[in-house]
């Protein structure tokens, strides 16, 4: 055994009813290393982390902490050992301020009778300052999901821990915040803190981690130093087969047309965005980029009349649409996939099948308005198969799925109707590489069938790899547009942060 091993898992198993989430896995974490964990959705990564943090108890196996066998009975016990966990699903108290949320664990262990409100805020500001600019006095409920994710990370940084676990922390972050986070991670590891880093983004793993362990179907596959393995090697170990090219081919030059299927003119909302105009041509996938809080989501939600007091024109196939609420949008064929799958996207306590059919029940009901359960199940089954969804039974609640699989249900819900235009806000958030390329393939197919496809993503490589054209949003306005060769991370970042005069848009309405 390596001297420097701080945490060792051996032969740990965990089942949820019929689902065997972990089957005798081993794992080893060294002092001061950044150790990546990779695996398909539902491979058992989060389950193992929950076991390490004392939230779940293993069915069998052993945990060694600094060489000693331990039983981690609760998150409290984990904290006492020095283990901190950033959850994949945001776990904050919505009614409480950011500062108090960050120091919940500290407050819990405090022996003091009174809260020291002043110092709490000061310390919160100091920690938050490393990441972004969030008011520590703000109520969490009022923050957008990406800011909540940052608070969640800041919360873990307040713990005085020896092992820090980050479960897909960058899923909702843009490049800039992600880079800040990597900086912090490296500093911590230099201080001797061990970090377990879970991500589906190979680039992040290979840029920042020392070693990588791969899981598949609840089983431990391998561990290797980053220098001794390639991204395709990792993917291979994860999936158990070769995955071809990551992104589907772009729109072929010969199918390109100037036919505009969808157009937005002078869309304005009282506070959040102004004078947004753009057009979408048949067959192309349009990307929207921007920094956190730039207003990308707001614009698209405004188009669909999901929120905000919006004015301006929206045209589909050249005809202006009269949309009053989202129901009208759906009827017109415009659908929106939310970035916050837990809050807006899914009915966590309802079954998978019921979730998939929720967008338009007419697809699974008879003329009399009666739901035909067989059709509903069949719909969920076929979409599940298409998206490689991993589940026990279609009647199980969505809450029993792994994060990435929940995202697949949310996407399946969008695909269950036959949309004319589909807006996807962070569609592959938390989705594994295999499924991700499958989703990309499906989107490309939809686009070439003439379905308008607009993708918002904080992952620039995804936008660049998938889209034919990318709009960049800054402070509620369209700052510019890139396509073809100009579609590089650097150009997008410049436009997004307003560093340089925008290149001339190639097409604008």
């Amino acid at each position: 055994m390596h001297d420097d091993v701080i945490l060792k898992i051996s032969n740990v198993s965990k089942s949820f009813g019929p689902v065997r989430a972990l089957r005798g896995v081993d794992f080893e974490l060294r002092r001061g290393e950044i150790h990546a964990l990779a695996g398909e959705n539902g491979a058992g990564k989060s389950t193992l982390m929950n076991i390490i943090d004392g939230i779940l108890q293993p069915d069998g196996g052993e945990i060694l902490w600094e060489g000693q066998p331990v039983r981690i009975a609760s998150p409290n016990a984990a904290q006492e050992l020095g283990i901190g966990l950033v959850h994949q699903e945001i776990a904050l108290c919505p009614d409480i301020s950011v500062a108090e949320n960050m120091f919940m664990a500290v407050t819990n262990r405090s022996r003091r009778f009174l809260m020291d409100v002043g110092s709490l805020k000061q310390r919160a500001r100091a920690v938050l300052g490393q990441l972004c600019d969030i008011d520590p006095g703000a109520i969490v409920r009022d923050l957008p999901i990406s800011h909540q994710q940052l608070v969640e990370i800041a919360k873990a940084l307040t713990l005085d821990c020896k092992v820090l676990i980050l479960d897909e922390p960058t899923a909702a972050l843009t490049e800039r915040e992600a880079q800040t986070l990597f900086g912090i991670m490296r500093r911590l590891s230099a201080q001797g803190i061990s970090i377990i880093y879970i991500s589906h983004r190979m680039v992040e793993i290979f840029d920042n981690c020392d070693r990588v362990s791969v899981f598949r179907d609840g089983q431990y596959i391998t561990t290797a130093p980053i220098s001794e393995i390639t991204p395709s090697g990792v993917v291979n170990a994860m999936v158990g087969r070769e995955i071809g090219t990551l992104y589907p081919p772009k729109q072929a030059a010969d199918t390109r047309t100037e036919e505009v299927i969808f157009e937005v003119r002078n869309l304005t909302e009282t506070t959040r965005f102004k004078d947004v105009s753009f057009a979408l041509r048949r067959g192309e996938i349009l990307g929207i980029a921007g920094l956190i809080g730039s207003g990308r989501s707001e614009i698209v939600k405004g188009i669909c009349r999901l929120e905000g007091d919006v004015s301006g024109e929206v045209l589909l196939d050249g005809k202006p649409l009269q949309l009053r609420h989202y129901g009208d949008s759906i009827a017109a064929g415009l659908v929106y996939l939310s970035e916050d799958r837990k809050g807006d996207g899914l009915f966590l306590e309802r079954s998978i099948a019921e979730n998939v059919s929720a967008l338009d029940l007419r697809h699974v009901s008879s003329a009399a308005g009666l739901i035909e359960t067989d059709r509903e199940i069949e719909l969920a089954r076929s979409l599940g198969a298409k998206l490689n969804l991993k589940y026990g039974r279609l009647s199980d609640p969505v809450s029993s799925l792994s994060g990435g699989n929940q995202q697949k249900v949310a996407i399946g819900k969008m695909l269950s109707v036959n949309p004319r235009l589909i807006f996807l806000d962070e569609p592959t958030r938390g989705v594994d590489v295999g499924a991700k390329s499958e989703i990309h393939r499906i989107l490309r197919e939809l686009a070439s069938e003439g379905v308008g496809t607009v993708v918002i993503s904080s992952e620039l490589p995804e936008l660049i790899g998938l889209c034919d054209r990318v709009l960049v949003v800054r402070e509620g306005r369209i700052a510019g547009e890139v396509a073809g060769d100009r579609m590089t991370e650097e150009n997008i970042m410049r436009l997004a942060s307003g560093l340089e005069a925008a290149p001339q848009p190639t097409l604008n309405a």
Partner: protein
Amino acid sequence: MENSIELTAAAKQGSNPVKKFLRIRETGLILIILALFVAMSFASPYFLTWVNMRAMVMAFAVEGIVVVGMTILLISGGIDLSVGSVTALAMVIAGSLFLAGVDPWLASLVAIAACTGIGAFMGFFVTRIGLHHFIVSLAVMVIARGACLLFTGGRPLGLFSLPPEFKFIGQGSIGPVPLVIIVFLVVVLCFDFMLRRSTAFRKVFYTGSNEKAAAYSGIRTKRVIFLTTTLCSALCGIAGIIYMARFGSAQPTFGLGMELNVIAAAVIGGASLNGGSGTIFGAILGAALLSVVSSSLALLDVSVYWQDIIRGSILLTAVSIDHYLNKKRDAGGKA
């Protein structure tokens, strides 16, 4: 593929009718009620008689209609404390109009319309003003009770002179089965079926489960909540009219404390106070359980001073057992 194998396995399990029965959420309640029945038929020779059964069902049939409304409202995420007073108000309005010379059928329609209006009024405050169901329905509970007092001067109305064909609603029988029970069963079966199968009612589940996600699925959630609130009050109106026909009177103080009984029935039957889950069938079983316990205590002539203690304890025990069985079933179904 693994998934499909898992699924077919589950499907195969289900072919055994006993196992299928054990997987239904209401099984626990049914077993508890059955156990009570068995115990009671040993304890009293009168228990398992047709007349006693009929009386026991009659004792909760009309309230059962209100339970249906409350369950649907709970599923949508709401709650209604005004059911007792609104039911009384229906009696009072219809009764007063009848005494003032209005045709009883017309008077009943007016009363039901008025209750529906009250429901719409509450729905307005909840969906447009943004208040919580609890506080709105509490205020309306007080207001409706006040209206009962105002219309009657606090005095019960004697409605003995209601025409026989009207009284038939509450007192008549078709064959051996009282009409009240038939109406009750029809209401229950209809709504149970619709709640399970119709797209309209499925939206109620979505709305109660996660209102925002429902809105993001294009469901006009405020409208859904408005309608479930209105429906509940409308069903109270119908219940009030049936009570009136049955008792031949309208008491302004009728239904005091009914709300807790009705909510308890729905919750025992599996409805969640946080919305998103519940069944009519379960709620009616809950109402039946409460009623059977009360009837049994009366049949056994248990001392009044002990009855409440026993009743409360049985309730707590039954709910605990049911909870335990469900937990076990959920775990077992997966194992």
